[in-house]
């Protein structure tokens, strides 16, 4: 195993533990903080895979903006504490489905790839190259995404505005 792989395994283990704590936490604020840990570890994985720009976007948008949004959402709604208040009755079935999905994915992955055959040799992707690809080949999806963001912005304002007629 190379040094990169050791670093990846450490990040992946921390991220996995935090993800499990996120879906089992009994306190919603703790869940949001575990989400921060998981997202930061995923960002670290991007860094190890030499996807520099995506890693910093992950830190900026996910850890910086989306988690803050979640914390505001938790703050504005009543957040009860305890397993019964946060989980529904179908926990056993949910566990079965989750394990089934995991087993299916692991089966497919080890069927499709040999354990040691395809190795990722990360090439350093400069932000310039990524931006060029974004604005040359993927201009149309980029515009669609910006339109989607505009629609989401207007939608969020319309939804959360107090209705003045009533």
């Amino acid at each position, binding site marked *: 195993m190379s040094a990169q792989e050791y670093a990846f395994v450490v990040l992946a283990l921390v991220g996995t533990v935090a993800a499990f704590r996120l879906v089992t936490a009994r306190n919603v604020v703790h869940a949001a903080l575990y989400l921060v840990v998981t997202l930061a570890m995923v960002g670290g994985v991007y860094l190890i895979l030499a996807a520099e720009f995506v890693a910093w976007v992950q830190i900026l948008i996910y850890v910086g903006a989306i988690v803050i949004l979640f914390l505001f959402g938790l703050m504005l*709604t009543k957040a009860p504490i305890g397993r019964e208040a946060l989980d529904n009755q179908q926990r056993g079935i949910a566990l079965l489905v989750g394990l089934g999905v995991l087993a299916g994915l692991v089966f497919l992955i080890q069927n499709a790839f040999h354990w040691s055959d395809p190795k990722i040799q990360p090439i350093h992707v400069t932000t310039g*190259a990524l931006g060029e690809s974004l604005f040359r080949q993927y201009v149309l999806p980029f515009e669609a995404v910006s339109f989607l963001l505009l629609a989401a912005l207007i939608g969020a304002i319309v*939804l959360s505005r107090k209705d003045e007629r009533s």
Partner: protein
Amino acid sequence: MIRLPLVLFFSAVLFSAGVYGVLARRNAVLVLMSIELMLNAVNVNLIAFSQALHDLTGQAFALFVIAVAAAEVGIGLAIVILIYRNRETINIDEVNLLKW
């Protein structure tokens, strides 16, 4: 040098944790968090294959997924807060207006 299946297993674990969270939670904000977990698993796969195949497409689409996730969380939380304002609860098993 990182083995590709290692990264894919990590992403599979993240995705199934997200599936469990979506199915087991009843607090709408926690369901949204689990959805973020699943989107992140997809992004990990996109980046891993982008670097394995030396193709920038995966990274461009990872950026698109992040943007769509941000829009989804914004709208989702606006809806959740609106439901809370109207019904005093955000437990998704108690919000069954559209169920018949």
